[in-house]
């Protein structure tokens, strides 16, 4: 995709520690995000989602692969050049309280984000505009307060304001809504929608909440044990999931309108060794699956899965109720 603002190419990362087996956290993952597009990255704890986010932010070094922002590879940049380029990708973390310097006021935190991006001093007018964008109004009531004086929801909105301050092309949000109450979740998603419409910000949204993925993303990528198991347009992945892992994820969703299927405990510590990483948990596992690692194949337009059995199967239907209005309309408005 030539319009990609952020491209992750063949990223791999293995963590090695003394006296422990190496952990292959991310294995040959490629993903692209277009301007104004939201890609949801879903998968269970330990699937490598957060490591991929940290690789994309270049907070950790990949063993292999490239991060390309607006056509420029970040891998060869060093020092100040890297820091400036990296401001085009901004993170929002799950716990906003832990990501703020507690001794800086809201004014200090936001000014630092703006000035750090190499732009001139931030005036109160610009800060007020940022705060208004995240519904912290009037600005005079917030600029001189410290993060601990704000409520959880207000801090999460401040985290969004700070991420937006350097005018990034892409925001990488790692579980920004988990633990948030549903009314706050809707409020934060509305802010992200507004920024997408107004500034064309692209999002990589890491979440284990399938409702959020369904409602907010254009595309979904499913990670399992460090690899992309499936990716494709949101509607297509939800209506016709190709990978048995995606089908299992969708089956256990507790939605208000459809009962979940019973979940049996996954086998513990099943080191898959050779073959498909999912075979110990897969109802379809065959001899081939135990021997041969499946590659990601495109099976319908833009919709790929890494499963030997995927081509021969119809999807399992949409376990989460399909949303009548889909997000592409947002970009148009």
């Amino acid at each position, binding site marked *: 995709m030539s319009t990609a603002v952020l491209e992750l190419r063949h990223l791999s990362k293995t963590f090695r520690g003394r006296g422990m087996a190496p952990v292959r956290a991310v294995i040959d993952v490629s993903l692209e995000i277009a301007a104004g597009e939201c890609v949801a990255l879903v998968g*269970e*704890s330990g699937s490598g989602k957060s490591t991929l986010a940290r690789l994309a932010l270049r907070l950790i070094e990949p063993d292999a692969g490239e991060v390309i922002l607006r056509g420029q590879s970040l891998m060869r940049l060093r020092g100040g050049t890297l820091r400036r380029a990296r401001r085009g990708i901004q993170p929002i973390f799950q716990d906003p309280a832990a990501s703020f310097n507690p001794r800086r006021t809201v004014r200090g935190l936001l000014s630092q984000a703006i000035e750090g991006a190499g732009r001139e001093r931030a005036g109160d007018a610009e800060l007020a505009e940022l705060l208004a964008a995240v519904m912290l109004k009037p600005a005079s009531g917030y600029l001189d307060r410290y993060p601990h004086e704000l*409520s*959880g929801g207000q801090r999460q909105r401040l985290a969004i304001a700070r991420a937006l301050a350097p005018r990034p092309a892409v925001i990488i949000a790692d579980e920004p809504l988990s*633990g948030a*109450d*549903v*009314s*706050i*979740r*809707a*409020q934060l*998603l*509305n802010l992200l*929608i507004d920024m997408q419409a107004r500034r064309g910000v692209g999002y990589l949204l890491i979440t*284990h*909440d*399938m*409702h*959020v993925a*369904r*409602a*907010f993303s254009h595309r979904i990528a499913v990670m399992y044990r460090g690899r992309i198991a499936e990716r494709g347009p949101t509607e297509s992945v939800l209506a016709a999931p190709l990978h048995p892992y995606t089908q*299992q*994820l969708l089956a*256990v*969703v*507790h*939605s*208000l*309108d459809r*009962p*979940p299927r*019973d*979940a*049996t*405990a*996954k086998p*513990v510590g099943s080191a898959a060794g050779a073959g498909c990483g999912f075979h110990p948990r897969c109802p379809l596992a065959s001899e081939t699956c135990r021997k041969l690692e499946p590659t990601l194949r495109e099976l319908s337009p833009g919709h790929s899965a890494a499963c030997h059995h995927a081509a021969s199967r119809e999807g399992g239907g949409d376990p989460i*109720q399909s*949303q*009548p*209005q889909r997000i592409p*309309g*947002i970009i148009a*408005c």
Partner: protein
Amino acid sequence: MTGAAGGGAILEVHALHVTYESAGRTVHAVQDASLSVAEGEAVGIAGESGCGKSTLARVLLGLVPARIAQIRNGRIAIGGVDVTGFAGRDWERVRGQPVAIVFQDPLSFLNPVMRVGDQIGEAVRRHDPAATVPARSAELVDLVRLPRSALRRYPHELSGGMRQRVMLAMALGCRPRLLVADEPTTALDATTEAEILTLLRELRRELGMAMLLISHDLGVLRWNCDRIYIMYAGHTVESGATAEVLSHPAHPYTRGLAAAARLARLPDGHFAMIGGDVPRLERPARLCPFLSRCDAAMARCHEAMPPASPAGANGHRARCWLVAPAHREAI
């Protein structure tokens, strides 16, 4: 708002008012909460942060010291025993048996330097003196579908889901008739959450145990509870059969909560949300606590607190002037 508790009630809470005192400030965390759980029944409490649901759960078992939390009014009965005035060792009469509790975060509950088997064994020795400890411990890990090898592990060696199963095994070791589960799956990812909820459903079937499930997740409550109570700002504002309340919510707060949980879209493309902020709890509400955020508010709402009134089938009740008989007569 005591629900349809047919047979004997294992838990009854009536008009409970609980305040916290801290640094000279008083917080009315629970102001007027009433609920009941019948033997064998699964009941949910839904509400957002700060609505008082966890305070309620802790006060039920006397887990908040009296100098911090005070019961100002109301009554709690467990298995027919009035525990409202309980202090100190009185609580041992009800804790574990007939009521046990599991929390969101097993790590802060489990002893980090004690093997899982020893911790389960301790619970067995304390609450089931007649049992042979190793045999009963093995039975309990089987019951929560853990491998026996887990008994030799330390808590940090287990995954979040396995730790939650350990805490559950310890609670079940007391042979409770009511299990209070306070956000038991909130810290877990969706797959593990589903496994724990499935286990809870199976255990309730096998043991005939009642459950009070506290959660902010309406989807979780929808499929795991017979009846549900919606809490807002310390008040139980709506209650009834879970399917009825969530499909036909009568209280504007419940309606807003359900729309937000479904991520329903408004015509402008935004997601439906509840505007405004939760009220401060420094003094008890005299009017409906949802008034400042309610888009259905009318003159009556500014005059008096609405009573709990019938709002639909199967014992559905709501504390809202929209369904109060006085309002119905007026229109």
